[in-house]
């Protein structure tokens, strides 16, 4: 099952985490207490030019020294500390959550149009692969962070003191795992660089999607299908520079019989997308919300096997599995509607 919710304030007005914590807890019927997580954008204004690397350490001895080594080869650690937490009786502390505020040495990555991102991506893939045991990078974007663990939404929120963070975009997820038991790394949101993903459902095309991203230099290490969505967005969004509506069209395309009926220009475009990005097509039931620093995108699978509800109020756009969750956060929400299957719902920061 799983419950998801995302919100953006298009004018970058900040909200603290208490609202989304309430909304997520309302959806506890959709979860199983084995995982919950939050992502927030705009929360580190003092370090807004640094990549905030959130890492789970099994202990602060061996894994930390290995990570310190590799990170410092590739850039400067401006500041680092344990992520402040508050013990919760129902949450077992399996890892030490840590954060580095990191600036890569740009000239170390040659042959790339986005060297800083590629350095950070390289570090994430390296640390998360089996070469360094006991360390897992779970957030790697600028001026944003993911907070997640194995537990119920309120416990995870209180553990990380979510109420004390102020962000203009929030994502949250209440997990009922389908394939792996609850472990901190398996909770959502999944993140790479500025992309964060929350996902309700299961991806039957995972094997195909995984091969595609792996042949493009990503490594799937989290034993959870959702991970591949973050990498697909990074590949199609950052590397191929496709607009969000086109990325969604690649992942949840219209059917061939619908494409055959389109006008020439539309048909050519949709056919080109399906032929080129066939391995990125996602099958299986899903409702997904993806966030990046300038917007959020929500969409469902092409035959609408999972629910998704959208609401607006002033500068705020809400996307969630349930209307009741949105109303918990914002009782004055207006314009509640449900998008069509595969239809992207996009909320962008207004500049």
């Amino acid at each position: 099952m799983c419950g998801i919710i995302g919100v953006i304030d298009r004018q970058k007005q900040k909200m603290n985490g208490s609202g989304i914590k309430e909304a997520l807890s309302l959806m506890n019927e959709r979860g199983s207490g084995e995982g919950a997580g939050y992502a927030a954008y705009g929360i580190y204004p003092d370090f807004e030019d640094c990549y905030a690397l959130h890492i789970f350490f099994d202990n602060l001895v061996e894994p930390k020294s290995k990570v310190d080594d590799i990170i410092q080869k590739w850039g400067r650690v401006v500041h680092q500390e344990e992520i402040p937490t508050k013990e919760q009786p129902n949450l077992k502390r399996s890892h030490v959550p840590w954060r580095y505020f990191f600036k890569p040495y740009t000239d170390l990555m040659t042959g790339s149009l986005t060297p800083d991102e590629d350095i950070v991506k390289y570090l994430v893939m390296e640390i998360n692969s089996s070469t360094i045991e006991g360390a897992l990078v779970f957030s790697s974007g600028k001026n944003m962070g993911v907070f997640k663990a194995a537990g119920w939404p309120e416990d995870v929120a209180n553990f990380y003191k979510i109420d004390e963070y102020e962000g203009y975009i929030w994502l949250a997820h209440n997990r009922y795992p389908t394939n792996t038991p609850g472990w901190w790394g398996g909770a959502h949101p999944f993140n790479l660089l500025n992309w964060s993903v929350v996902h309700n459902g299961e991806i039957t095309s995972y094997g195909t999607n995984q091969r595609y991203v792996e042949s493009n230099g990503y490594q799937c290490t989290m034993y959870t299908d959702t991970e591949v969505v973050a990498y697909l967005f990074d590949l199609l969004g950052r590397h191929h520079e496709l607009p969000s509506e086109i990325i969604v069209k690649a992942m949840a395309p219209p059917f061939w019989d619908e494409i055959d009926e389109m006008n020439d220009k539309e048909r050519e475009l949709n056919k080109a997308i399906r032929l080129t990005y066939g391995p990125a097509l996602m099958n299986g039931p899903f409702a997904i919300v993806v966030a990046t620093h300038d917007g959020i995108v929500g969409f469902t699978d092409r035959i609408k096997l999972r629910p998704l509800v959208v609401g607006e109020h002033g500068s705020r756009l809400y996307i969630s599995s349930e209307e009741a969750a949105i109303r918990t956060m914002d009782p004055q929400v207006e314009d509640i509607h449900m998008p069509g299957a595969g239809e992207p719902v996009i909320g962008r920061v207004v500049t």
Partner: protein
Amino acid sequence: MEPVHIDARGLHYTPLNQQIRRAVSEGTTEIIVDNVLGQRFIADGLKGEVTIRINGVPGGDLGMFMNGPTCIVKGNCDHAPGNTMDSGKIVIHGSAGDAVAHSMRGGKVFVRDDIGYRGGIHMKEYGEDHKPILVIGGNACSFLGEYMAGGVIIVLGKSSNPFGGRGVGSGIHGGEIILRGELKERQLGVGAKITEFTEEDLEKISPYIEEFCGSFEIDPEKYLDTKYTKIVASSSRPFAGKYVWE
């Protein structure tokens, strides 16, 4: 008897339903539940002659397995209201999500606005008093009436073409789907066919339209004509020609 008031704020669905059942067993004929926000399974398996007014946004499966009561919702419904409902009535002053009236086998569900995908999926009927009726005032999405085996679905539509989706009546083998306006052949699902909507058909469904409009204080006149498309099963064994023995 005085109506019973229940404040559902912060209440989990199990204690809420317990309060509702207690009121019904004490002979109450009207219950008003306020501040509903996301509680699932309201009136689940409930029997009896009672009207429940729900103010707020109930969660999924409202009236699941319900057998007799009437629920009137001032707000939108979530997933599958009327799920496997046996008899009774649900009136929604708003819209509803996917799988509305899933497997319903009796009673009535009226939705003032739109519904999501797979509305009326698996609806079935048997005998005279087990014929479910689903009426939608707004629009419906794809796969309306999928696997339908009985009952009636009526979509009145806010514009003259209420149905822009595909797969209408996919796998239908009984019952009728009646859409206001026209439908293209390619929007039909497998095993469904379009037949003529006659004056006789209008006579049959007029009582439902009138009752529906009465619930929402709408004037029924504009809906009482023959500008409808009627969809039924093309055969009761649409897939017989697909298999062969070893």
